[in-house]
């Protein structure tokens, strides 16, 4: 069984990202970058499937700047077998990413595509679903447990009402939620081995994908600063303020 895992290069979760002073976008210059945490969970799940003898090959793919090679290499150190890097300088929208992944699926015919449920930069939560639509394969998003059973899979999904268990036919798209697993760290021997694994480079154009943005970013600015709170004298004053100042109750 072949597994394709998508990883995105994003600002490290510890970094407080700021808007550029000219409001043209987030300021990522000099910012520490890392694998999107949800993608890391997806990689871990694939590696566990391989350790259980279910998966035979794990291909990791990233789409973005040349520097994303670092994140592909990290995934290889975690246990993926080979990498694909699709380079472009265009700011990518979810649809463009999904189209690139669709092209890779056409070439590689994976049985499962594992992705993070969303990336912590845009928080869009689009790509897995769009890839599902483009491939016409089954999709199981927000997975917190994944069990493979022959040519189908049972997935427990985290939904607003609690947990939902579904069965899907393979090939399928699965997006990882936070509780799917606890990702490992790359050991030194594996970091050294990863250096020797191959990463194939390609471009959206080579894959026949048009990644031109469909939307325009008008302005990026920080959220308004929260004002200091006040202490109210009693419940009556609180109700009055909620009614007449905040206008949240009537």
């Amino acid at each position, binding site marked *: 069984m072949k597994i394709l895992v998508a990883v995105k290069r994003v600002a490290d979760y*510890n970094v407080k990202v700021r808007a550029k002073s000219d409001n043209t976008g987030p300021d990522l*210059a*000099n910012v520490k970058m890392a694998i999107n945490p949800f993608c890391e969970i997806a990689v871990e799940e694939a590696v566990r499937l391989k350790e259980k003898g279910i998966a035979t090959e794990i291909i990791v793919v990233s789409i973005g700047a040349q520097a994303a090679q670092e994140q592909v290499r*990290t995934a290889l150190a975690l246990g993926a077998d080979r990498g694909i890097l699709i380079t472009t300088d265009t700011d990518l929208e979810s649809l463009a990413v999904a189209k690139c992944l669709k092209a890779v699926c056409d070439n590689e015919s994976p049985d499962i595509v594992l992705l993070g449920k969303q990336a912590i930069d845009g928080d869009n939560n689009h790509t897995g679903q769009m890839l599902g639509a483009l491939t016409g394969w089954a999709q199981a998003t927000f997975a917190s447990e994944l069990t493979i059973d022959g040519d189908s899979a049972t997935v427990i999904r985290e939904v607003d009402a609690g947990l939902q268990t579904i069965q899907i036919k393979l090939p399928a798209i699965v997006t990882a939620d936070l509780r799917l697993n606890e990702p490992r*760290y790359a050991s*030194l*021997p594996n*970091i*050294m081995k*990863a250096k020797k694994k191959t990463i194939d480079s390609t471009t959206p154009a080579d894959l026949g994908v048009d990644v031109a943005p469909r939307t325009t970013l008008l302005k990026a600015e920080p959220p308004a600063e929260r004002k200091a709170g006040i202490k109210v004298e009693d419940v009556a004053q609180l109700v009055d303020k909620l009614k007449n100042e905040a206008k949240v109750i009537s």
Partner: protein
Amino acid sequence: MSVPLLNDRDVEFLLYEFLDTEKLLERPRYSEHSREIFDASLRTAKTIAEKYFANHLVEGDENEPTLENGIVKMIPETKVAWDAFANAGFLAAHQDYEEGGMQMPEVIFRMVMAYVNAANIGTAAYPFVATGSANLIRAFGSVEQKAKFLTLIMDGRSNGTMCLTEPGQGSALGDITTMAAPADDGTYRVFGQKMFISCADHDIAGNVIHMVLAKIKGAPPGVKGISLFIVPKFLVNDDGSPGERNDVVVAGLNHKMGYRNTTNAALNFGEKDGAIGYLVGEANKGLGYMFQMMNEARIGVALGAAAIAYQGFNHSLDYARQRPQGRLASCKDQLSPQVMLVEHADVRRLLLAQKAYSEGSLAMCLFGSSLFENQNSAPTQELRTRNTQLLDLLTPVIKSWPSKYGCISNDMAIQILGGAGYTREYPVEQLYRDQRLNPIHEGAEAIHGLDLLGRKLSLYGGAGYQFFKEDVAQDIAKAKDFEPIKNLAGKLENAMDVLEKTTQSLQQQMGVDIDRGLANATVYLDMFGRIVGAWIWLKQGIIAAEALSSSLHESDEHFYRGKLQAANYYIEWELPAIEQYAELLQAGNSVPFEMQDEWF
């Protein structure tokens, strides 16, 4: 995690700008490596430090190991941390490929240690002592000893210890009384008591391999009669599994001020028939072997001091940015909002001093590690010798400066937190207690003063000291090209003259009366330390001044300005203290020396 362990930008600066670590890739030993591999290794180190070491900093402090029926018990998180560190391959990281290691350069390995030290020094002590004992076996053990014991430590199945100190002998090891009697089978039976042994016993790894200094019966007196032995807690079976229990037991635990998650015990060897010990290398050369490993171990201790100081700095900086308190003197509006602590000049002074000590300490330790690296892997014998001799000179300083100013730095962190800093609800009081060990172990401060003045200055015919003067002079010349630090270079140049005069004067005084001449060696050590500190800051200042001469991203601009300010602070505010010391030392002032016991 809101407060970072170190500062990733500074880590990058120290490795790739302050030191040229990438240049190591040209050496055959590191041909398989790359900067990508270094960075990935450090990412793993940081993850492990954050997840498995930092998580039980307070718990380990509040629940020191206990002794129950002769068995040491400790909080279970310690073993999880040990396993994570071992499984990541860090215990074997800097060893050779043939020995199952990864040939990681020394400076990268030390940076790995800096992360775990910053997260939890009490737990980091286990891998620290383990790698120290592994290095000893690797350097001086026989092929069989390496096969039997080294692999066990490298893959985490055993920890190690260093057993030097005894109840009666700490600083003066020549007088130790632990004895080793030869047995018929070529092994030895060890009898005696060791004191203050870190990691002496625990339930985190299956075995403990003690590296023990003892005297073989009939050996010459003093340091020339000391031998080194491997004494495992459990004898080791051929498959590496623990076998029969050896005759070494924990006599009792010490209850410490800090480093509380590190077991520290008195060990009894040979309560019955004698503990089975294996002689390492030749008889009577044990202390020499230990000392050859000392430079490394001492940089390691200082690195712990640097990391604890760094944590204190990070915590107090974070606090100062969030705690509103008072207004500036110039503010007349009592209804205006209070300012954050960091806006008070005095708080910034305390923060800047901490920055100078903690970043300066980390830089100094890594610089020392780079000399150690060059001692082993520099391309020519001439360079290797030069680095050895320079490192031998500087080791007492590199051990002592971070330890001493680490304590002062952690004290300042408490001050910034005010009342909160004095409570156990905030980590700075623990950091201070942890830090306080560092000027004591691995050679107390006074011992390093004696080592520097009494021995190292004249070692190799004074070659190390000569190289030091050359290297400092070279950086002074370089710094003079940069307007913002020109004056700092001039100050360090003057300080070097003062040092030279003082050194000559003390050497002359020692010639007349060695006890008088050495009486204030600790003060001389501090003077030397301030000069090395100033040099380390001048080196950083040069890079910052150069970077600032072109246009930079805002965050880089702030970073380099910070470096420049700290260089200015250290050289303008702290270096000049040497003038007073120099005056007293050159004059041979003997007030402390002539004080008499009866007068106290």
